């Protein structure tokens, strides 16, 4: 019983060894599977946890999902340090090595094209938060004491909502300007949906959640650019994450259609259940 094969990424062969201590999903160290001029990074996972049914159940268990996602990301992260991986989504599982090889054979051209497109590039994540609750800021400004009259109350209320709007407008302008500046240094950009961080305990409200595809050789410069903006605007916080493998830019083909996206659908539909 050797278990199933979990595939993390497809890469060009790389000379450097992965960290000795690196463990993958389910604690098995990842290894490299060669196919022509590509390699798949795989590890063994127990069928009991990764068969279709078990996996479906597991994916709804947030603790399991969290630790699996971290393990997956850790392997991708280690690969990013030594090469340009093409990261696969969580839980791409095959019966055995030959299943992985068949998949690679079928998609060889797509992998090569995409790897060429991403070669030498990494992804940086930039988030902008409005740090202080705008309403609290406005509250602090308001004169002490209770409103003297209904009219006074309405006046204060409209002042408050104006301050609120000003804050959002400033934040929006800041985010737009930052995004424009960073885009000039990036080869590609993606805007993700804002994360609602009020619930995660992180201060402030996420107003920009962007990903930038940046060459390794200009990454240092890019990071400095982000750093420089950090004290620019009071009440606005800029957060940088990365370098990530180019997750946000990996899934798409260039203009001439998305063969890479549609083909697996067909493959999936054609298989017996």
């Amino acid at each position, binding site marked *: 019983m050797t278990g199933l094969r979990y595939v993390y990424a497809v890469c060009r062969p790389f000379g450097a060894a992965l960290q000795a201590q690196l463990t993958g999903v389910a604690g098995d160290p990842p290894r490299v599977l060669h196919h022509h001029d590509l390699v798949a990074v795989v590890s063994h996972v127990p069928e009991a946890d990764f068969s279709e049914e078990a996996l479906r159940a597991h994916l709804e268990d947030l603790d399991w999902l969290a630790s699996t996602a971290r393990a997956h990301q850790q392997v991708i992260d280690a690969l990013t340090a030594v090469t340009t991986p093409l990261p696969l989504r969580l839980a*791409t599982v095959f019966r055995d090595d030959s299943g992985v090889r068949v998949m690679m054979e079928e998609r060889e051209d797509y992998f090569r094209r995409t790897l060429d497109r991403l070669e030498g590039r990494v992804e940086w994540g930039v988030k902008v938060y409005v740090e202080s609750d705008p309403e609290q800021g406005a509250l602090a400004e308001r004169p002490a004491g209770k409103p003297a009259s209904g009219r006074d109350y309405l006046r204060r209320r409209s002042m408050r909502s104006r301050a609120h709007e000003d804050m959002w407008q400033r934040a929006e302008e800041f985010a737009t300007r930052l995004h424009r500046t960073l885009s000039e240094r990036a080869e590609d950009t993606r805007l993700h949906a804002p994360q609602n961080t009020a619930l995660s305990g992180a201060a402030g409200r996420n107003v920009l959640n962007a990903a930038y595809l940046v060459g390794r050789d200009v990454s240092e410069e890019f990071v400095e650019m982000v750093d420089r903006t950090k004290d620019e605007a009071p009440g606005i916080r800029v957060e940088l994450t990365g370098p990530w493998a180019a997750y946000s830019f990996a899934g798409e083909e260039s203009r001439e259609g998305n063969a*890479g996206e549609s083909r697996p659908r067909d*493959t999936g539909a054609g298989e017996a259940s």
Partner: protein
Amino acid sequence: MTTPGRLPEPYGQGQGANLADILERVLDKGVVIAGDIRINLLDIELLTIKLRLVVASVDKAKEMGIDWWESDPALSSNARHKELARENAELRARLAELEPGRAPEESP
């Protein structure tokens, strides 16, 4: 063979990374490939997982900062509802302040 260029130190990753950031990428992005035992996280399935996660453990998810459904208009019909509720609560508080004799709960 690739010789990586010099990269700055990782920011906000490793053990401390925001789980929402990781899932955003690992679950939502990356390349979609059907595994040969038909385990594939195609878009429609991802949506199902998201929704079920919400139903299964909303508090836990919130603790961890996972809340796509709230920022995702496709999933969140109560984003606006929440905003109204918040404003309502705020107005009630104001009312209580203005009319100290009357508790906000007493109003119909």
